[in-house]
């Protein structure tokens, strides 16, 4: 029995003291002796042959140390080729998957395929010198027609982004559940629409960075990087630099957010340079590079056909997804398939077909960013329901109530395999209950009355609903290790890679509860590939589930070991030992007990040569059987201001189910942050490429993030339908809110202007885009 004290409470974060007092280390704070600085020369062309790179003046400049181009790398540095997952043969078969090989050169060789692609790297004594020198590098291109539109990219006469492929379709899949065609024939209503979610970028407040140092005496390469996946980075370094894992350590300092990513060429070349020049090297991304060159996402066009009966029950859903994948696609079908697995959401859709294509274009690569395809999917399904509801003449809440999967159907099978090869089954959830709660807490019916009244006063108030699911906690395995220190405290090593999600706090809570000790006596460490034999990192809302479960298991194991050891030392039966509040005592005796400190020291004394660890330690791993489904139902009421067509959110309510809440305020924080990310995507964010393939808004003046003034106050509620799939009963919650906010907003704006038949099927939505829609109607007269 453990002394439960922390899990389930809004425990104050252990991370806060150092972050609030500026006593922390981010990548830009790392300073190594004799450190040099790197900057990248990047392509200014979307699709071109490199005619020449003239480095003559650069080499003579003040502070110059080195410049390398793709040709210089030769066979010393191999390109990136690893994809992020393995697909099982069953899955490939069922989903008719085809995927091309992935190859991304570290520095461009011979040609460039997107604006921003690194062509050369300059190393200099200071960052200012490096920037000066970069100006002196002259690159000559022979421009070719760029591919900028994923539909046009599929035509016969389009240029090829990847000359090794026959066409620009890099990856795709097809699935069919039930019989869509037969079902559609019986439908009373078929609604067909196309939805588009504009290209955005992750845009954390901290830019990326890499620092690398080669210790030639120990043959050890230390790489600090703003990566979510340190172990995966290490294996890529092994491959690309032909090094052994024993020569590599990847360290992750505190990170200022991330929201998605992958492995980047910069993470490979900077270590290479550190070894070649035998000097530590720092590279810090600047904001323009961040916007144009990292973490692009969304940019999926989704065509749907929904078949409904006359009461609004959905019978079939036929979906075609086209993703603008950019010039490289290490994530294969991940994002398009995420759309397919999430688009049916909380709704019972018995017949379902989806075709997805990831199409190459001459743009920065498209990668999973918070939501990873689910915002696009949720936009499509929730808009479809609102449109169908209007055509049938029922309220959007009513059509959802008719279609939400009843609790009696849970666990609910989607009739297809998830990307990990396991049948996709909603393991837990109470969708009806969640929705009912949403309508109650949001005061939905009252708002409908207010909406009607205020229309008489010339105000355009709109209400939007959205229900999403979120498959979370995908494998692979996470390991963990806990060690009992000499002084009786614990050190805990996790493979989770926090970048704001409070992992250290939450893991401390789990471990402290298991061991019945105070949370102050747990020190969690992460971000170092030396800590654990294997690991993956943090992505896809998995860390509470996978790393958290691993933590529980290793803490349980440690508890058992302590009790065993104490029973030996106290010469008692293990069943007679009580271990609580850091003391192991023999039941019924007030004199026979040991503190953790004593236990630890006794262990050390008796264990001089025997075990592999001087200190008492326990390791455990957790491999999730498959994903588990979190869910959320969201409501937004907003006003389209008549004078400007600006959108003003009046209230935002969410009801989310992430199973057991390990730390409620942390969960709320994920919901608030996720909603605002979604709001920002919906109203402000778009990376804009023109027809020439050039990015026209590479700065924060043109690429807009929601500030506090544009962000709503969110009233967040929770349900708890725990999953049986992991020892904590938790489901992920980091990305779900981002999936529903855009759908809810698109629905609400459409609802506000419904009498003008305005449909918001494309995001972001701006006042001028709304104007274009309403200028074709009698809106002006209605004012």
């Amino acid at each position: 029995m453990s002394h439960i004290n922390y899990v389930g409470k809004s425990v104050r974060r252990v991370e806060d003291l150092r972050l609030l007092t500026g006593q922390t280390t981010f990548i830009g704070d790392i300073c190594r002796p004799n450190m040099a600085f790197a900057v990248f020369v990047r392509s200014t062309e979307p699709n071109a042959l490199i005619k020449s790179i003239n480095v003559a003046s650069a080499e003579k400049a003040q502070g110059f140390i080195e410049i390398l181009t793709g040709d210089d790398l030769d066979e010393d540095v191999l390109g990136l080729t690893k994809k992020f997952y393995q697909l099982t043969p069953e899955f490939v078969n069922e989903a008719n998957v085809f995927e091309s090989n992935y190859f991304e050169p570290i520095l461009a060789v011979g040609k460039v395929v997107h604006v921003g692609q690194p062509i050369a790297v300059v190393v200099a004594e200071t960052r200012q010198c490096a920037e000066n020198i970069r100006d002196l590098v002259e690159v000559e291109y022979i421009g070719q027609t760029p591919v900028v539109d994923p539909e046009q990219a599929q035509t016969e006469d389009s240029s090829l982004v990847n000359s090794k492929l026959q066409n620009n379709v890099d990856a795709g899949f097809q699935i069919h559940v039930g019989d869509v065609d037969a079902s559609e024939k019986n439908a009373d209503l078929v609604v067909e629409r196309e939805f588009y979610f504009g290209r955005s970028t992750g845009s954390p407040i901290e830019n990326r960075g890499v620092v690398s140092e080669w210790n030639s005496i120990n043959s050890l390469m230390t790489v600090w990087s703003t990566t979510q996946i340190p172990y995966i980075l290490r294996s890529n370094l092994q491959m690309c630099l032909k090094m052994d894992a024993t020569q590599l350590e990847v360290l992750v300092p505190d990170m200022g957010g991330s929201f998605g990513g992958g492995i980047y060429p910069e993470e490979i070349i900077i270590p290479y340079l550190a070894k070649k020049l035998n000097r530590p090297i720092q590279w810090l991304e600047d904001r323009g590079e961040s916007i144009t060159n990292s973490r692009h996402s969304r940019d999926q066009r989704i065509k749907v056909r929904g078949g409904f009966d006359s009461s609004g029950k959905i019978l079939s859903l036929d979906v075609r997804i086209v993703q603008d994948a950019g010039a490289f696609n290490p994530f294969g079908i991940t994002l398009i398939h995420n759309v397919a697995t999430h688009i049916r959401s909380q709704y019972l859709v018995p017949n379902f077909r989806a075709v997805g294509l990831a199409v190459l274009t001459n743009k920065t690569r498209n990668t999973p960013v918070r939501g990873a395809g689910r915002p696009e999917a949720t936009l499509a399904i929730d808009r479809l329901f609102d449109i169908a509801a209007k055509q049938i003449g029922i309220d959007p809440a009513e059509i959802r109530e008719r279609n939400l999967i009843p609790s009696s159907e849970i666990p609910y099978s989607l009739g297809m395999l998830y990307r990990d090869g396991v049948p996709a089954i909603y393991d837990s959830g109470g969708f009806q209950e969640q929705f009912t709660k949403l309508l109650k807490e949001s005061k939905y019916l009252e708002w409908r009355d207010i909406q009607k009244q205020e229309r008489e006063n010339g105000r355009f108030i709109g209400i939007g609903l959205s229900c999403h699911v979120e498959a979370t906690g995908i494998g692979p395995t996470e390991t963990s290790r806990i060690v009992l220190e000499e002084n009786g405290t614990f050190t805990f090593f996790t493979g989770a890679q926090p970048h704001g999600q409070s992992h250290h706090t939450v893991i401390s809570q789990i471990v402290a509860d298991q061991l019945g000790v105070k949370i102050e006596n747990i020190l969690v460490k992460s971000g170092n590939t030396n800590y654990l034999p294997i690991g993956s990192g943090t992505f896809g809302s998995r860390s509470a589930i996978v790393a958290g479960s691993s933590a529980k298991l290793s803490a349980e194991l440690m508890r058992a070991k302590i009790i065993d050891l104490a029973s030996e030392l106290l010469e008692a039966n293990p069943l007679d030992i009580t271990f609580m509040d850091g003391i192991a005592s023999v039941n019924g005796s007030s004199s026979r007990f040991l503190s953790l400190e004593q236990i630890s020291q006794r262990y050390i004394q008796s264990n001089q040569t025997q075990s592999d660890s001087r200190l008492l330690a326990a390791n455990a791993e957790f491999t999730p059987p498959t994903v588990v489904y979190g869910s959320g139902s969201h409501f937004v009421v907003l006003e389209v201001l008549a004078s400007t067509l600006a959108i003003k959110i009046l209230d935002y309510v969410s009801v989310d189910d992430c199973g057991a809440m390990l730390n409620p305020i942390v969960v709320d924080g994920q919901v608030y942050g996720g909603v605002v990310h979604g709001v920002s995507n919906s109203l402000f964010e778009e990376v804009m490429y023109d027809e020439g393939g050039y990015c026209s808004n590479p700065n924060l003046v043109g690429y807009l993030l929601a500030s506090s003034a544009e962000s709503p106050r969110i009233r967040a509620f929770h349900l708890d339908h725990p999953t049986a799939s992991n020892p904590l009963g938790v489901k992920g919650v980091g990305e779900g809110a981002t999936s529903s906010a855009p759908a809810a907003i698109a629905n609400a704006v459409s609802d506000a202007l419904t009498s003008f038949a305005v449909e918001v099927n494309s995001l972001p939505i701006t006042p001028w885009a709304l104007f274009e829609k309403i200028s074709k109607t009698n809106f002006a007269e209605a004012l």
Partner: protein
Amino acid sequence: MITDPGGVTETIMKFAEFELIKPKSPSEVSRLLNDNIDSAKILAGGQSLLPLMALRLVRPALLIDITGLDAMSEIAVNSKNLEIGALVTHRQVELFGDMPEELNAISMGMRVLGHIAIRNRGTVAGSLAHCDPHAEWPALILGLDGYINVEGVNGPRRIQGSDFSLGWYTSSLLPDEIITSIGFPLKADDGTHTTSYMSEYSLRHGDFALAGVVVRLSAVGDRISDARCVVFGIAATAERLTFLEDYLNQSNLSEDSTRDVGNIVKQILIENNTHYSESMSDSYCIQYLIPNLFTDGIRAAVANLKISKNL
């Protein structure tokens, strides 16, 4: 969204090297400007200039720091005018407690200009000299009939607000001239009531405006007089809409009388639409936003006047 024309991946964050000098008098500034035409820039608050330098869009070899000049940090108001020294920050203006009612538009403008940290440093003169067509001050100086006192190697002169902005980032300052103060005349205390109003729209709070309006109205009895209506953000400089001003000068303080403002504005702007660009956001500005901003602005100004006249 405001895009960066021709922006590629040129993203450079450390300044190129430069020298800095801190003169003690306006004449010294002018001399330095004259001796370093094309390679020197004035540094006041730095909130417009330094971002451009960070992106290496401008690379002056010499910065002339004018924050050492005496007696330019004051705002002074008397019965004739309001004078703002060249080093006065937007924040000082925002917090100025004695803003005359007729210059209300200035107070309204300060609340939406950038963010507090920017307003703390950015100067009125700096913003004016920068001549960004999406900025508030060039529109305010035109709408409120302001003037700009400048000094160059040939001595001081006064530039009328209407003559100051010539185009995108181009003012009528001669290369050796520095702004020493900005002034707004006040209407004589002769029974005329005057009020002004400013509003703009931007996607986010504090961003440069997509477009905006400045309105100043006077009333003699219940007749509107001396109307000044300025639109900014849709052309290379802020502009007066004289047709609208004429219409208002024929109107009185009844709601009915100024009812057609929106339509009139729309008509003027559409008729002149070759003057403005054709992007989606500009159609929206011309056909919807600006007519509405004027409608709301004039309604508010009229209501204000009625109150002050106890009508």
